[in-house]
């Protein structure tokens, strides 16, 4: 069992190396290997998950094993793997979504299409002209860097699995960074586009900021507890000690650590103020990298902070007022949720809307965690992963469908602008229905969809524990969510086609639709495992499995908040109201001019990019040009290097003339040669070239030796 856990991340890693090193030219082989590896990991995850279900009181006895890694003085720094209810739940959706991505990207990168006419590595494929039944037209062409893409996402999957199965902060951080690298590579996958380049750098830098703090936090933990494995840190007495030890700023050690780690999450999960990278990350190959950044990697941030919840909430018990760290977390989460939602309503790019909605949904989870709603956060994490993955893949499918016409004729409508779409309902039915399901799940359409249950649980917790501010803010955010979701669906799918591209859009291949359907099933079904007991009507029909299961991760099972009508009514109102308004406003909007929400401040995302640019980027580049480049590099370092070079030249000259030529060449070289030649010409006589002659001789010698041995040594 534990061996299986150890092996879980490996197949994608192997796939990465194999593809990169060997099968770079063989497209089919590459995606075969990648999907196969993902399938293996998927299989392993499912086995583990099923086994986990079988265990009673799983939270108490988790699967796990660890090995000594580094000797640190007397003790060892252990690394290991562990599957407890939380990571089991996470590994479940990770396995599904990752597999879905892999299969999906086969279709998305136009596998099976001919090579492009003028495609170059680093730019999206331009399509190719082919002649069928006499008249020629353009069809999408296969991605030039097809294999490389699969290598990247394989590495990414490796990072994610490592992060989920690791039982200590160190390996978790390793997986974390691997994913950071992968997101950089994937966002900048089409490095031919300047925008993609900048987006990649931006994402990398922004997340780095968070990671530095996270590293600080980890170091802090280690210096305090002398260990990084969760089981060590979460020992009650250890938490007690951490909570009681005062550190700076009047915070306890636990508080500081929690805060530092949380900043890491802020970077990774794109919370305000480090949210800026996520929208630009949409520059990557639509939508797979986008989906990776939306459904998987950002979940890692939330997963980490959920994982560290015992530490963050050290010394806090349910019902008490929040401690500083938690209130900070709650504030940031709630703020982000609302803030991102406000931006999302004004975006026209189908993917950017989803990106901002992701930010805001993550805000939901963070806020839920901040108010101590541990299970609710985890629940929303899982459900959100499913339906957000579904939405992104759906949007990708839409764009793919649109691109057909864009390629077909050279009128360059932006295939991602929702105002160029409309009426796709009839053109792409599968995409439409799955997208609809996903959208309703996102906006928390009552009772049916998963999103409703998870959000409702968050509301219930927020209300029941009396964090009214958070409750209200989240409610507004939820309303906006429903609103822009409906806006998106209406603009994209309903009404009449607004461009020829939309008219001629066509359904995408099965490799893209099948993952959609699978994810849609989860987006609906996964909510039903978390229905609270006291829910009127449905409650108790299906046991609230998720709460029991994931709640078991904590030391004591968090008690389910008692049922109350207010949050339920609220979530019903916001969801349905938002959906209704969205449809009401947008079902007859034809162009951006009729859209009353195109306010500059919202469109420009509250000018955050500009601010950051002015405050950080400009000064940094000034220092780089003036000081570092001109002074440090060209004067000091170069001068040093040149002198070294001159010296070594001189040294070489000396060796050549006074050592190499006289001693090595003449004496050793020729002398040995002559010697060997002489002896060889002497010895060649005995080489008759007949095997059996050789064998006879050797046997004779052998017998002689044996006899000698027996009589001289063995005998006495």
């Amino acid at each position, binding site marked *: 069992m534990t061996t299986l856990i150890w092996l879980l991340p490996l197949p994608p890693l192997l796939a990465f190396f194999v593809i990169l090193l060997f099968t770079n030219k063989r497209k089919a082989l590459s995606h075969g290997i990648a999907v196969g590896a993902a399938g293996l990991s998927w299989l392993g995850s499912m086995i583990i998950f099923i086994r986990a279900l079988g265990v009673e009181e799983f939270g108490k006895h988790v699967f796990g094993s660890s090995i000594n890694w580094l000797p640190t003085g007397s003790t060892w720094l252990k690394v290991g793997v562990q599957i407890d209810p939380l990571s089991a739940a996470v590994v479940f959706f990770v396995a599904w979504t990752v597999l879905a991505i892999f299969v999906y990207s086969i279709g998305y990168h136009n596998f099976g299409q001919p090579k492009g006419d003028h495609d170059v590595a680093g730019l999206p494929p331009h399509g190719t002209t082919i002649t069928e039944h006499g008249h020629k037209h353009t069809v999408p062409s296969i991605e030039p860097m097809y294999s490389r893409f699969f290598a990247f996402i394989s590495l990414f999957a490796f990072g994610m699995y490592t992060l989920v199965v690791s039982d200590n902060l160190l390996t978790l951080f390793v997986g974390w960074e691997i994913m950071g690298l992968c997101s950089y590579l994937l966002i900048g996958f089409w490095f031919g586009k300047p925008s993609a380049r900048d987006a990649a750098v931006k994402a990398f830098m922004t997340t780095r900021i968070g990671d530095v703090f996270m590293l600080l936090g980890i170091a802090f933990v280690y210096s305090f507890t002398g260990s990084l494995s969760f089981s060590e840190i979460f020992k009650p007495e250890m938490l007690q000690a951490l909570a009681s030890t005062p550190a700076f700023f009047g915070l306890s050690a636990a508080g500081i650590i929690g805060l530092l780690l949380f900043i890491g999450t802020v970077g990774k999960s794109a919370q305000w103020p480090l949210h800026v990278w996520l929208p630009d990350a949409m520059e990557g190959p639509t939508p797979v990298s986008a989906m990776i950044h939306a459904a998987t990697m950002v979940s890692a941030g939330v997963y980490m902070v959920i994982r560290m919840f015992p530490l963050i909430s050290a010394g806090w018990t349910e019902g008490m007022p929040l401690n500083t760290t938690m209130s900070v977390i709650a504030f940031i989460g709630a703020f982000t949720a609302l803030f991102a939602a406000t931006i999302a309503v004004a975006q026209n790019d189908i993917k950017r809307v989803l990106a901002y909605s992701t930010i805001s949904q993550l805000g939901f989870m963070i806020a839920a965690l901040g108010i101590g709603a541990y299970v609710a956060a985890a629940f929303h994490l899982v459900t959100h992963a499913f339906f957000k993955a579904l939405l992104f893949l759906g949007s990708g499918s839409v764009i793919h469908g649109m691109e057909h016409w864009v390629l077909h004729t050279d009128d360059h409508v932006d295939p991602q602008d929702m105002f160029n779409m409309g009426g796709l309902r009839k053109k792409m039915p599968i995409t439409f229905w799955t997208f609809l399901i996903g959208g309703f799940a996102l906006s928390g359409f009552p009772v049916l969809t998963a999103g409703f249950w998870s959000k409702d649980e968050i509301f219930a917790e927020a209300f029941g524990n009396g964090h009214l501010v958070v409750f209200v803010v989240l409610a507004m955010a939820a309303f906006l969510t429903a609103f822009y979701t409906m806006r998106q669906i209406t603009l994209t799918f309903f009404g009449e086609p607004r461009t020829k591209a939309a008219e001629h859009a066509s359904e995408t291949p099965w490799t893209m639709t099948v993952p959609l359907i699978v994810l849609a099933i989860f987006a609906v079904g996964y909510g039903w495992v978390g229905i609270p007991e006291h829910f009127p009507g449905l409650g108790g029909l299906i046991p609230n499995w998720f709460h029991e299961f994931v709640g078991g991760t904590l030391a004591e099972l968090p008690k389910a908040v008692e049922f109350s009508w207010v949050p339920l009514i609220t979530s019903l109102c916001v969801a349905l109201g938002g959906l209704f308004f969205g449809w009401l406003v947008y079902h007859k909007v034809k162009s951006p001019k009729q859209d009353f929400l195109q306010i500059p401040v919202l469109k420009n995302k509250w000018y955050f990019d500009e601010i950051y640019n002015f405050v950080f980027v400009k000064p940094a580049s000034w220092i780089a040009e003036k000081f570092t480049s001109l002074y440090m590099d060209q004067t000091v370092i170069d001068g040093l290097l040149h002198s070294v070079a001159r010296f070594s030249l001189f040294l070489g000259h000396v060796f050549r003339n006074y050592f190499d030529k006289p001693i090595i060449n003449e004496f050793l070289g020729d002398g040995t040669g002559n010697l060997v030649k002489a002896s060889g010409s002497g010895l*060649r*006589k005995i*080489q*008759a*070239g*007949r*095997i*059996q002659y050789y*064998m*006879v001789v050797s*046997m004779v010698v052998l017998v002689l030796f044996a006899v000698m041995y027996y009589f001289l040594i063995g005998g006495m």
Partner: protein
Amino acid sequence: MSIPLSWYLILAAALFSIGLFGVLSRKNAIAILLGVELMLNAVNINLVAFWRYLDPVNMAGQVFAVIVFAVAAAEVAVGLALIISVYRRRKTVVADEIDLMKW
């Protein structure tokens, strides 16, 4: 099992010597390989006999016999392939006539 161990060993020794004779005396390269096979089988007889007589619970003897099988198979495959390709080029399989390596 009233057979003394020494019987097996003597039989193996005889088989080995016969094989050796074949290897050293036959002209035809294939016949030489036949001799090698006999020698390998002599070894195997010893292995299995010792396994049975000394420690039948520990399977080391049989395992090594199995590995000898594998080695024999590989040796025959490559050896015969070599002989055939030599025959293709030089039209002979007599070991003594294949002496390009002589001085």
